[in-house]
């Protein structure tokens, strides 16, 4: 359809209109419809517009960084390094130690990663290796796509009403204080949320494995599992690592679902069943309440930390993926 359009020049405009020229039959020359100067000006403006847009993206990211740094200066000056090592967060007494949130963020992200790895690896292998074609695998692919599309606030709502009671009954079963809202609950939701992301990245990495390597392994008499272990996994090791890293970046910054089920307690958590807080959830909860300058700026320093962490993780993960030609 499009092909015809291009041929007939409906979409593209006629040659005469496009080139801005007119064939003069008497003098046998192409006469410009508009003056060449005007065309040149238009062209220069167009190119300038393109590079402005590109520069604007760069400016936005630089601006984000600079704004965060400037806004967190009061807190950096007031708290210094204690910001990272202090375990008391008490805005009333003007004490800002973020260790509980750092610990909460690290534990929830890594636990979520740990839970999600077998599942996302399972999906990647299922779609990339065992059943790459057929209605069943396309149904699973659609399902994973759907999972990626569900907003985090809906996951949070679902977790609040379904997952929290489940965890509570588990806690009652093993005899710990049954809050229901806990670091474990948050990790479970996070795991569910990052599975589709790491699974789709993993599937692309696994699809990159050359066919003749796999055939060679089969020709040597390897079973499918041995082939996967020796060829697929070892060939796509760095890609799978990058996929995990990128999902870690996602997990670090995820806010809403975590805020709804983690319990929002600023005390250093002692076990997985304790309520906690993450950097993102504490910002979400306290940003609009922060009255004093230092309090406000301490929250922004957390945001700066999140920005730097995810930026580094993303740059490293993306560069590995680009080297493998998975993402351009």
């Amino acid at each position, binding site marked *: 359809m499009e092909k015809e359009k291009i041929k007939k020049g409906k979409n*593209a405009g006629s*040659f005469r209109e*496009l080139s*801005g020229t007119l064939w003069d039959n008497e003098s046998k020359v192409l006469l410009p419809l508009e003056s060449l100067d005007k065309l040149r000006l*238009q*062209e220069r403006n*167009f190119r300038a517009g*393109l*590079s402005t*847009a*590109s520069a604007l*993206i*760069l400016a*936005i990211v*630089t601006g*984000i960084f600079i*704004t*965060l740094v400037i*806004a967190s200066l009061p807190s950096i000056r007031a708290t210094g390094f204690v910001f990272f090592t202090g375990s008391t967060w008490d805005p009333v007494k003007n004490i800002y130690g973020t260790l509980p949130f750092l610990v909460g963020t690290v534990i929830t992200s890594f636990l979520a990663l740990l839970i999600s790895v*077998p*599942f996302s*690896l*399972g*999906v990647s*292998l*299922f779609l990339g290796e*065992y059943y790459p074609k057929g209605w069943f695998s396309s149904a*699973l692919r659609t*399902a*994973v796509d*759907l*999972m990626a*599309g*569900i*907003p985090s*606030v*809906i996951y949070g*709502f679902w977790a*609040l009403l379904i997952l929290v009671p489940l965890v509570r009954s588990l806690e009652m079963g093993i005899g710990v204080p049954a809050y229901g809202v806990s670091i474990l609950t948050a990790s479970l939701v996070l795991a569910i949320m990052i599975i589709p992301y790491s*699974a789709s990245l993993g599937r692309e990495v696994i699809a990159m494995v050359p066919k003749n390597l796999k055939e060679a392994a089969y020709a040597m008499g390897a*079973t499918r*599992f*041995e082939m*996967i272990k020796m060829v697929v996994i070892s060939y796509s090791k760095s890609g799978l690592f990058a996929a995990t890293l*990128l999902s870690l970046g996602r997990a670090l910054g995820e*806010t*809403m679902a975590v805020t*709804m089920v983690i319990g929002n307690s600023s005390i250093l958590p002692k076990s997985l069943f304790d309520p906690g807080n993450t950097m993102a959830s504490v*910002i*979400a909860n306290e*940003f*609009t309440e922060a009255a004093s300058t230092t309090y406000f700026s301490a929250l922004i320093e957390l*945001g700066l930390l*999140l*920005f730097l962490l*995810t*930026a580094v*993780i993303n*740059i490293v993960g993306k560069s590995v993926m680009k080297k493998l030609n998975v993402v*351009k």
Partner: protein
Amino acid sequence: MKETAIRNRIYKNNLIKGLVITFALLCVVPLISVLFYIVKQGVGSINWDFLVNVPKPVGEEGGGIANALVGSLIIVGIATLMAVPIGVAGGIYLHENKNTRLANWSRLSTDVLMGVPSIVIGIIAYFWIVMTFGSFSAFSGSVALAIMMLPVIVRSTEETLSLLPRQLKEASFALGVPYHKTIMRLVLPCALSGIISGILLSVARVAGETAPLLFTSFGNAYLNTHPGQPMQSLPLLIFNYATSPYEDWHNLAWGASFILLVWILLMNFFTKLAIRKWRITY
């Protein structure tokens, strides 16, 4: 001896296959559970009144989500209007200028922007817009969402353009067509499917974002269409009402979740349709 070794290997092979299938299928359980609960709890509260009324205070029957529905449409609409031109132009620049210094830095920025947590974008929109104008506003929410849409649009534009054959442009230049007209009238129409699907994807991605709206568009219990004032949106309404202790408000949140989910799934469906309808074969 040899036979048992082979049997062991086959056994191990089958075991791993079983594990892979089990784990892959278990992934779908949460999805089914989420969909099941949202449909079960949400569908009941959907009716005309639900769509055209604003929420009522606790204790009163009825009430709807009109304010959030209108707010979401306005906030996402303004964000799209801001993000699309910049994103598409940026994508064209990145494709046309592969290795200039600006292109490299801008590509890196896109990567970074793709991973910035949405809550950080919220802080930024608060500083840039809310502090400047002195009040929470729908517009500041739109700015936050637009920043989040940018990298997706840039990426999809760049990738779609790189799929087009080079000869298309060369033929146009050979005929003496100026650069800007080649891009605007020939390259862009050919790449329309990819660009539109990228835009739809980015809209679907930000339509459910809550964190950046917490301190920008802020939420509003009444219907408001003025972008300079606080405005309610679907995700914010779900967050506020889901975390409230009242049963009535939970029902409202379930209904809103259902609408939001249908909206986002429809966007995804249209993306697939756009790709199929405008797919170009050479």
